[in-house]
């Protein structure tokens, strides 16, 4: 009897695990005839476009979705996703037969998305000319457009006009004016323990040390890592850290709370933080980022947009939805209103600027004139990996030259290894 029980238990175990093993292999191997086909026909017959985005914009897009359904009979399902894992989730699920048709993301995902082969090229046709040049540049990877851009954003210098009425022309002038204002924090830029190179990039470029050089066509050249020219920037970082003007204690939360309570004179941040500051009663003005070195301070431009899944069963509808609906002024305006990041469509950007009585939007646009697109090449991942912690270390007193030199060699090593 003991034997029987044992064998039964064993049988159940073997049976179930065997089942799973075969389920597992069938799901991962290519068996389109069995599993993928029914899903496909289901999706096509119901005529649903699934769109992934982060929740902030969900409402704005819902209206567009309803309009689209009324016009074409194709319903658009808006799915809010965790912004932090959306890219990896998309890559993992894109070809499963159950991935979304359209996903919202940023232009610097492109290297990864194309390397994985999960995005389909778009064709903007004659409408390409209707977008800001920076937007089209960002949406293009290796000569092909993959993204329908909806916003172009960059950081700029916010100031509390009641404390500091004027925009500074240099970094040092800004610190002097900030200190003179008597504010607890003359200048705030978010860092945190891991650093934040995105927000510091304008200062880095003002020392003439972009991350990658660019080839003749303006594309970033992975073989030309120019990060190493930043030793002057590194020394400057160290000096600012020692003087306390840059600090890893300034987290995003603290920067925002202190600015909104009137304790910060100048704040280097993005458009997403403006509305809360205005609501908190701060008299906000926006200006370009002052140069800390000898060259122009050029922040990163981030282009947001929508991608079409290469394995979507609804690519015609997806393309139509993006190019002919998301690419219209009304929709771009709606997205702007939900996220307050400037639109990518020229007409919408102009409309926003025209309606802007506070000078805030035009301030960001002005600050973005010299902005450079964040590199989308896969090698950029190797830079991000080390960059922030090294900057944080230098701010906290590590030897600037040696630490920066090590950053360069670590990044180069990681690029060569991949």
């Amino acid at each position, binding site marked *: 009897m*003991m034997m029987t*029980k044992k064998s039964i238990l064993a049988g159940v175990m073997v049976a179930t695990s065997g089942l799973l093993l075969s389920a597992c292999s069938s799901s991962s191997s290519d068996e389109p005839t069995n599993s993928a086909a029914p899903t496909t026909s289901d999706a096509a017959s119901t005529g649903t476009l699934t769109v992934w985005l982060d929740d902030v914009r*969900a409402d704005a897009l819902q209206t567009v979705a309803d309009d689209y359904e009324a016009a074409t009979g194709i319903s658009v399902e808006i799915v809010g996703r965790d*912004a932090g*894992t959306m890219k990896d989730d998309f890559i993992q699920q894109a070809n499963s037969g159950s991935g979304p048709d359209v996903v919202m993301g940023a232009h610097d995902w492109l290297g990864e998305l194309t390397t994985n082969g999960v995005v389909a090229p778009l064709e903007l046709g004659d409408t390409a000319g209707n977008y800001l040049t920076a937007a089209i540049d960002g949406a293009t990877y290796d000569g092909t457009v993959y993204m329908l851009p909806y916003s172009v954003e960059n950081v700029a210098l916010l100031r509390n006009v009641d404390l500091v009425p004027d925009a500074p022309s240099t970094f040092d002038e800004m610190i002097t004016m900030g200190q003179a204002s008597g504010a607890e924090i003359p200048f705030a830029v978010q860092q945190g323990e891991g650093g934040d190179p995105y927000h510091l990039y304008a200062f880095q470029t003002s020392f003439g040390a972009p991350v990658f050089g660019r080839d003749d066509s303006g594309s970033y050249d992975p073989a030309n890592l120019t990060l190493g020219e930043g030793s002057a920037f590194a020394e400057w970082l160290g000096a600012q850290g020692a003087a306390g003007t840059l600090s890893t204690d300034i987290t995003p939360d603290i920067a925002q709370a202190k600015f909104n309570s009137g304790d910060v004179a100048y704040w280097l941040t*993005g458009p*997403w933080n403006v509305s809360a500051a205005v609501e908190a009663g701060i008299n906000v003005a926006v200006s370009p980022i002052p140069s800390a070195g000898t060259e122009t301070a050029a922040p990163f431009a981030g282009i947001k947009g929508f991608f079409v899944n290469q394995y979507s069963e609804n690519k015609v509808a997806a393309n139509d939805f993006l190019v002919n609906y998301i690419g219209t002024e009304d929709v771009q305006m709606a997205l702007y209103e939900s996220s307050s990041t400037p639109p990518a469509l020229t007409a919408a950007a102009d409309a926003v600027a025209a309606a802007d009585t506070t000078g805030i939007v035009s301030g960001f646009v002005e600050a973005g004139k010299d902005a450079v697109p964040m590199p989308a090449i896969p090698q950029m991942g190797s830079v991000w990996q080390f960059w922030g912690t090294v900057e944080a270390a230098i701010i906290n007193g590590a030897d600037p030259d040696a630490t920066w030199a090590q950053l360069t060699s670590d990044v180069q090593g990681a690029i060569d290894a991949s």
Partner: protein
Amino acid sequence: MSAPVAPKTRVVPVASRRVGPVQRLRATGWRHLVALLLSAFALFPLLYVLSTSLNPGGTLTGSNHLFQTVGFDNYTSLLSSDQYPYLTWFRNSLVIGLTTAVASTLIGALAAYAFSRMRFTGRRMGLLAIVLVQMFPQLLAVVAIFLLLLQIGDIFPSLGLNTHLGLIMVYLGGALGVNTYLMYGFFNTVPTAIDEAAKIDGAGHARIFFTIILRLVAPILAVVALLSFIFSMNDFVIASVVLVDVDKQTLAVGLYHMVSNQRGAPWSLFAAGAVMASIPVVILFLFLQKYIVGGLTAGAVK
């Protein structure tokens, strides 16, 4: 619901003597002092959440000046929000949480009973295996569960992705695990003489289990039920992959998505949501507390 035998009054040796105020202070005063210190440790981080939830437009950790602004705007706007179906999330969480708690406690108790009361080949290995299985690093769990539910949903749509039942089943996959061991330990302290007596009275094994043993292990059932309820209330990693539609999501998923894009995240709304989301846990604990600590001690059943 009360147990057949009244809880036995405990004999507490020191305090049973007549004591004056000084002794009483020495006996319980230090306890309160320690308890207050521990409460401060437990509560302090949560005061930030409460303060943020009462301050429209507040940040989470930006300021140490707590409770400068106090208002219920965040609560009312969250409850009446079109964008965030908070009450729907709340209901989903309760349904999923309670179902998971009851089912996984029952499943675990069944197994713990077999492991405790029966002797069979592979018993020790089985016990060890169910705990070891839970130690596997869950790196690919989310991908695996996605693929699995995709296949299941192909055949049984009501159990696939984007269904509450599917998620509950995934949670029940963890029902046999360390909690079973916890119950197993507790079952072991219930004397087998009770089973024997019941058997002599002619009760079958199922009847012994459901009508006698389960009552005797009420404290641990309550603990395990609470633990699984809290687990499913707080899980967003698995739930956010399984539950796709906003209206199907749980509190943890919905709230996490609110702030996962940290730029301009509505922290104060989120904090209000988190405060309200903790209420079911508190209520369930209040309800279960009497079973956890007021349950029968093994020795009370002679």
